[in-house]
């Protein structure tokens, strides 16, 4: 390489470097409002609470002038993340099982534990399907080829579903038809896409959906009570704020929001 061509190469590389820098710096400034000064609260909540808790946390943000980060996933996933040290201040689970597990590991503050909501389990079908109201006993029929459900090894909605279908005596027949999803919203997505014939979700999930219809509501006697406990994580650095949020979840204004979405508040 000649001296001249090395100089040319250097200039070329510098040109590319600075244009990439300029390009990325355009996005650097894009943040959500000025939130650096406000305190931050991290909430882990079950996937079925996505819409309700998003709305509620927004109103809490403006009331308390804080920033609330919420992570929605299957309660079992969140439990494992908390066990592994994820920085959550609060946990709202779709079943007592996950909170019990954390309680056993002394990771939650038991004095703050409280059941806040109830829900019911339903069988849904894509809105375009011709399925009408039906009984779970018919699920074994060849007409139904794919049934979406949360993983019954971990996802609360899947566990409740297994309990109900076992009670109806069809669980073993339908094993080969099961499409497992990571959380209850994943099940809903499968149903809405039309890729599966049926799915098992909470009644509150279907309320939000325009592409899924309820074909059966499981009687509450067919499964363990669907209770949503909330608790503060012991290792939180924002104890005052976390307690405030927990109290906020129980006031009349908030329970009205939950009931709007189809949950029943525990009084």
């Amino acid at each position, binding site marked *: 390489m000649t001296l001249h061509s090395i100089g040319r190469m250097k200039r070329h590389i510098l040109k590319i470097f600075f244009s990439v820098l300029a390009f990325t710096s355009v996005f650097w400034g894009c943040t959500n409002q000025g939130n650096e000064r406000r305190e931050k609260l991290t909430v882990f909540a079950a996937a079925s609470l996505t819409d309700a808790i998003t709305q509620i946390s927004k109103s809490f943000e403006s009331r308390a002038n804080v920033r609330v980060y919420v992570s929605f996933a*299957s309660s*079992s*996933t969140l439990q*494992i993340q908390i*066990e592994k040290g994820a920085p959550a201040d609060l946990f709202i689970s779709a079943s007592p099982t996950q909170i019990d597990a954390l309680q056993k590991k002394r990771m939650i503050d038991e004095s703050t534990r409280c059941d806040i909501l109830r829900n019911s389990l339903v069988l849904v079908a894509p809105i375009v399907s011709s399925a009408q109201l039906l009984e779970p006993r018919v699920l074994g029929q060849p007409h139904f080829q*794919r049934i979406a459900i949360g*993983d019954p*090894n*971990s996802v609360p909605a899947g566990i409740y579903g297994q309990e109900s279908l076992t009670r109806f005596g069809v669980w073993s027949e339908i094993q080969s038809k*099961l*499409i*497992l*999803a*990571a959380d209850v919203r994943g099940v809903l997505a499968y149903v809405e*896409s*039309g*890729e599966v014939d049926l799915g098992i979700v909470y009644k509150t999930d279907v309320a939000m959906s325009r592409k899924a219809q309820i074909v059966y509501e499981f009687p509450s006697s067919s499964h363990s009570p669907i209770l949503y406990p909330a608790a503060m994580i012991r290792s939180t650095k924002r104890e005052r704020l976390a307690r405030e949020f927990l109290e906020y979840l129980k006031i009349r204004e908030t329970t009205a929001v939950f009931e709007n979405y189809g949950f029943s508040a525990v009084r």
Partner: protein
Amino acid sequence: MNLTDAEVAALVLSLKTALSSLICILPPGIGVAWLLAKTSFRGKSVLNTVVMLPLVLPPVVSGYILLILFSRNGPIGAVLDRLFGLEIIFSWLAVVLAISVISFPLMVRSIVIAMEEVDPQLEGVARTLGAGPLKVFFTITLPLCYRGIIGGAILAFARSLGEFGATIMVAGNIPGKTQTLPLAIFNYVQTGQETSVYRLVFLSTAIAFGTLWFAENRYLKSNSVSIRMNN
């Protein structure tokens, strides 16, 4: 190392689908590589970009595109369903589809590099001696670049074994049917089954390490090609 039934199922499924995928993409892979290495035509750069796209796109994006195309109501899926009663999504075929799309560019790239090394003069001489293009391909081009083909195949195989994002999009995560090794590992981490995770992570790493080492040392070393050129 004792593996549970589910773990064995994941391993077997991974190997089965990776092998099937390899058999499916080898002929078109060689063909496309030849087009890219040895021909020039209008739109060649478009073909090159389309083929290489899954290499750069996030795998979940590639998977999502496949999902749209092959779902029951999608353009290709609807046709397959009507003509053959074939439902790709959530079946092991979806796994093969996903891993094929993802590993195809890897294989093609490797073969293109090898094919470009084949001296075009040798091919030209063969043509002047009366050989048709097909004969030239099979008797001159292919034998001279077979190492690149094998190397590309091994790379594609190894990549297929590790594919996650596209697979989970189109095939779901159904134990025994579509739960490959990477999907099983993810599932076990989610459900806190640590010992299963350790076993499968060890297995996957060993397989990947072995495959890659074998490919790099035997078929992808560039000096082995240049030594032959100097002779």
